[in-house]
């Protein structure tokens, strides 16, 4: 019976060509509509899932990706030199350059941890007061350190060598070490090193200590001739310019977010799969009502500026800091500022220094906006690592709790809208994780 009924229906269909055409058109129409209707992910899923990205949002997304190329540092004539980068790589990982032979740049900037150390505050020879920021993407930073007290990678790289808590050494010791171990590649780049084997002229341990001129190391430095002091300092600067050239190689690589934006802008529907529904909701909040985009803008997700976000003190006995309000004056007074005599830009014009406003009141208690590239891999967060994870950081912005800090919290900050879900913002931030830089740059071998 059933077979007969089915056969009868089939016969009726066969007898009606118009119905076949109509059925075919219906299938085409439905299929085409299904294809053409934006999927929830593609349009931005979530509470406002049914609307596509607006032209203004698309423009914002395009401003965040792709990752910009590194611009060469004009104050460093070897910033794009491959030999310098390779020498810098070896120096970066060499613990023999520290006072106790156990600390290198890579101690606090560990390659496998996206060039951070996973600690609240870093540990060199002693505990350091600051959280180690990632070096991936640092090549385009106009300011270094959380308070921006240095304005070039090479000037920054000098400081940890001579900081007692970090590598605890001296510039004569560093240059002597280069003389013994890296003389050939150094001299191929910069010419002859000073005769560091002459211990009468170049004491094994000597460095300037302006704040403590009676210190034995400072006294040893003072006994050197000014020409030998200058030759040592020049060599020391050249060494850190190689380290800077190496750090310029540590570029962020394409993350799921970049693939999503590229596909979105080119009309490739496969791109919708790059981000989860939650991540897209987070992205929409990030560039929209959460307002994160105001400070975390551009392809590196930083405005390269400084903000007081009112983070809690790292410990009850810690004192609030002037932060950028101090760093801005320090960089202007720095003998190694990029437009000074140790810089290689003959124009001597660095707009960041020329137009710096050190008295800008909002700089009090303000710290550098960190990049969000690979942020899921670079915790804990904050200048002193006082925020353990991304959820806690978002909760900080949700509540903006009262805390003890100098100045005032950035007036742009408002507590996050309750409709914004922490897990969505976290999911989006996780989509900013790309692979580590090329393997060659990940160790000193």
């Amino acid at each position, binding site marked *: 019976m059933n077979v007969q009924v089915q056969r009868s229906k089939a016969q009726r269909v066969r007898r009606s060509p118009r119905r076949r055409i109509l059925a075919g058109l219906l299938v085409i129409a439905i299929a085409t509509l299904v294809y053409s209707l934006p999927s929830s992910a593609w349009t931005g899923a979530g509470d406002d899932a049914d609307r596509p990205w607006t032209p203004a949002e698309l423009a914002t997304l395009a*401003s965040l990706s792709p990752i910009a190329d590194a611009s060469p540092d004009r104050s460093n004539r070897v910033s794009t030199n491959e030999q310098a980068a390779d020498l810098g790589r070896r120096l970066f990982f060499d613990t023999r350059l520290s006072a106790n032979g156990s600390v290198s740049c890579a101690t606090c900037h560990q390659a496998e941890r996206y060039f951070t150390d996973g600690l609240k505050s870093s540990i060199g020879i002693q505990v350091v007061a600051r959280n180690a920021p990632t070096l991936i993407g640092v090549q385009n930073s106009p300011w270094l350190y959380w308070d921006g007290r240095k304005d070039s990678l090479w000037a920054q790289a000098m400081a940890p060598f001579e900081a007692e808590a970090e590598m605890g050494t001296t510039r004569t010791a560093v240059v002597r070490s280069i003389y013994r171990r890296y003389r050939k590649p150094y001299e191929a780049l910069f010419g002859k090193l000073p005769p560091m084997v002459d211990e009468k002229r170049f004491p094994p341990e000597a460095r300037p200590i302006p704040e403590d001129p009676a210190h034995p190391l400072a006294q040893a430095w003072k006994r050197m001739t000014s020409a030998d002091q200058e030759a040592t300092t020049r060599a020391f600067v050249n060494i850190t310019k190689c380290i800077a050239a190496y750090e310029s190689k540590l570029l962020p690589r394409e993350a799921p977010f970049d693939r999503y934006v590229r596909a979105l802008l080119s009309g490739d529907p496969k791109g919708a799969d790059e981000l989860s529904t939650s991540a897209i909701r987070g992205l929409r909040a990030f560039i929209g009502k959460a307002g994160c985009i105001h400070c975390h*803008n551009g392809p590196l997700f930083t405005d390269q500026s400084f903000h007081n976000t009112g983070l809690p003190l790292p410990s009850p006995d810690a004192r609030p800091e002037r932060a950028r309000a101090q760093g801005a004056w320090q960089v202007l007074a720095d003998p190694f500022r990029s437009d000074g005599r140790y810089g290689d830009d003959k124009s001597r014009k660095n707009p960041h220094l020329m137009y710096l406003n050190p008295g800008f009141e909002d700089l009090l208690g303000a710290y550098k906006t960190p990049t969000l590239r690979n942020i899921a891999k670079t915790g804990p967060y904050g200048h002193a690592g006082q925020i353990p994870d991304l959820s806690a950081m978002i909760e900080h912005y949700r509540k903006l709790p009262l805390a003890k800090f100098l100045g005032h919290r950035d007036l742009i900050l408002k507590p996050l809208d309750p409709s914004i879900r922490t897990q969505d913002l976290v999911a989006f931030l996780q989509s900013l994780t790309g692979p580590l830089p090329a393997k060659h740059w990940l160790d000193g071998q």
Partner: protein
Amino acid sequence: MKPGLIYPLIALALAACGDASKSPAQMGGSAYQSTPTGPLSALGEKGLFRFRIQTDPAPPKLGDYFSIWTTVERVSDKSRVTGGTLRLDATMPQHRHGMTTLPKTRLHKDGRFHTVGCRFHMHGRWVIELDFSHEGQRDRATIEFPFHPPAVR
């Protein structure tokens, strides 16, 4: 199925095909507001002077330094003013902050004022503030400057 349905179905299929040809970048609702590239002008609060500003480059780029050329015109006789003192600043009223830089303004030899060292570190609504003094007269003006990412083509 009625024969009359064939035409709506064809139209539906064609319409759907048309939508599918759009890239996601072309979809969307709200209008995009672009950053001004041409000169902008404003009358001083006292009505003494009219100011015209032009950024260089136009539009500025997020995070990059740019300069602003300002032309001042006397309202009474529409003559160009080629002297005096101009102070120029930019603020984001909704964020209650200004630029992080200290721009410098000088009188150019062609009579325009040139302000260098401007930098917008955020997109959004900026306001250019002008404070001009000349031969004992002072006038101030503000000019809205919406600053947005470049449109997606």
